[in-house]
């Protein structure tokens, strides 16, 4: 994983992962362990937002839709169809991927704020359908759905918090590695070109619609996987999994961490979630803080707090003297020469 990131940052990242691996061994409070477990899954979800909103530049405000589709699919397939958990989990991720492909198909011809508008409308519609209707009845006449959500049939009972913590951390590392690999692949680089200038990419013969659909599909697959992890952890699929606030949180974390970097948004999500959740703030105050953080970030740090910090560090570095460029030299390019 670390070979995908520049050396210095890779070192800090390794140290961070080491600390996170060590944390449960320090006999922490179960609440903090749970906060971090949820934080890992939220960080993976935020990184999946970055695949669509950062790397591909398709600002989505309905990214909770594939996440929630996966949580509901996991719950319904397990409870109604009686499927074994692993089968239901795989199908849930596939359903989320299909949902993402559908959104991508609708959003691909659009650009700019209209993508945000379309995804917001689709996400809100799915949320309203989920929140307002107890559309199923479970065994014993209990109503499922609505605000209470649907319980997930888990194959384990009372799993130790350590197991959930380490499983979530492993999922975050693996999924982030997968998303970074995608962002550095040929398709990922073309998506960056599409995000930078769609007209130039199109003039160069890139079928931009196809690549936008690819971004939505891949991002939604990872969001669905995070949704499966989340529903397995909390044991229930609720309408909150489809909420606008969840999509908005992902956009906030990405803006703070630096869009298009995958790791930056994931780290910001983990840090801010742990901070705000650790302070035990009420949900209303938390969303208020997220909104205020986002507005300040967008106004004063358009490249994200982390991105601006990197720019300042780079400027300071240049003042100190010339540095060896980190980028790999293309064959035929003179040493130190620009493209």
């Amino acid at each position, binding site marked *: 994983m670390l070979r995908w990131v520049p050396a210095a940052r890779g070192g800090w990242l390794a140290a961070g992962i080491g600390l996170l691996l060590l944390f449960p061994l320090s006999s922490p409070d179960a609440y903090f362990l749970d906060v971090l477990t949820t934080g890992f899954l939220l960080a993976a979800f935020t990184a999946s937002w970055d695949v669509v909103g950062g790397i591909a530049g398709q600002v989505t405000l309905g990214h909770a839709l594939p996440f929630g589709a996966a949580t509901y699919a996991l719950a319904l397939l397990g409870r109604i169809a009686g499927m074994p958990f692993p089968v239901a989990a795989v199908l849930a991720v596939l359903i989320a991927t299909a949902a993402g492909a559908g959104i991508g198909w609708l959003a691909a011809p*659009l650009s700019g*704020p209209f993508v945000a508008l*379309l995804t917001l*409308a689709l996400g*809100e519609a799915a949320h309203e*359908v989920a929140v307002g209707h107890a559309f199923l009845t479970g065994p014993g006449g209990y109503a499922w759905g609505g605000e209470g959500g649907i319980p997930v049939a888990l194959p384990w009972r009372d799993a130790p918090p350590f197991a959930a913590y380490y499983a979530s951390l492993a999922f975050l590392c693996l999924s982030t590695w997968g998303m970074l690999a995608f962002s550095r692949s040929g398709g990922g680089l073309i998506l960056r070109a599409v995000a930078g200038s769609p007209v130039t990419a199109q003039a160069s013969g890139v079928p931009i619609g196809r690549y936008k659909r690819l971004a939505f599909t891949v991002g939604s697959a990872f969001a669905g996987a995070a949704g499966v992890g989340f529903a397995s952890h909390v044991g229930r699929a609720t309408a909150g999994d489809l909420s606008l606030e969840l999509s*908005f949180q992902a956009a906030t974390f990405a803006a703070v961490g630096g869009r298009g970097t995958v790791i930056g948004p994931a780290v910001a999500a983990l840090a801010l979630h742990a901070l705000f959740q650790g302070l035990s703030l009420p949900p209303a105050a938390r969303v208020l803080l997220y909104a*205020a953080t986002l507005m300040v970030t*967008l106004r004063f740090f358009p490249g994200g707090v982390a991105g601006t910090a990197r720019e300042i560090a780079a400027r300071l570095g240049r003042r100190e003297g010339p540095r060896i460029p980190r980028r790999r030299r293309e064959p035929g390019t003179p040493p130190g020469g620009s493209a």
Partner: protein
Amino acid sequence: MSHLPQVLLDGLFAGGAYALMAAGMALILGVVKVINLSHGAFFTLGAYVAYSLAARGIGSPAVAAPLAAAIAFAFGVFLGKSFVNPVRSHPFALPVGTLACALLFEQAAQLVWGPHPVAIDGGAPWAGPLGVVVRRWGVSAFLASAALLGGLGWLLSRRPGLPLKLVAEDEEIAGSVGMDVEAIRYMTFGGSCAMAAAAGAFLAPAGAITPTMGRVPLILSLIVVIVAGMDSVGAIFLLSVGLGVLGNACAYYLSPQWSYVALLCGVALLLAARPAGIVAMAGRQD
């Protein structure tokens, strides 16, 4: 079926006020060239101002609407000048930033006025024919909105509206003839927010006032602007009234949530179907 005339009349009244909000959205889109996702928050602000005044014994919309408009104008100018203008060229910042503003207001309203719905007494209705009751708030909302929109249409067709039309058409030319384009932009933003707040104050007695009540009129305004475009105030008014009637009928015969879902699906379908209004706004790539 016996309730149909009542449902249609109430929808007509609500649609008239929605037209005021939609016209504000169209002004922002035309002059400032941004989609303001915080527009619904100003509608909610207007409703809460009306509620706060009613709780102090001042229930008249003639007081609530101007006060709500003044407060929203001040906040709108601040938002337009300090946030929208500096970041308007950034494709990520505007939709996400204005949504952040909307959520910020929703959560602030929840902290100030509480999460539970509140309501205003709209006064005793008048008895109409066929057992239909004519609600006072509805008549005042419809007439005031129609008058304000008529005034806006007149303004835009005369010399005072020329700067707005010129900035909407070509900012560079507007700047080259000495107009303060930035000031026109944020003043328009503030004025549009004031229109949304006035609409909220007019419609406050129509139902429950909640922190998230502005989401429905926001989506409705977006549909109106997408379909009717930004040029004709008359088209905006007629479409808003039509959608108000349709939305009210849907809310009555199905449920308010299904009405909202129908509106959301309407936005998605309109965007997916490449309507001419969207193409005119350069939202699509060919």
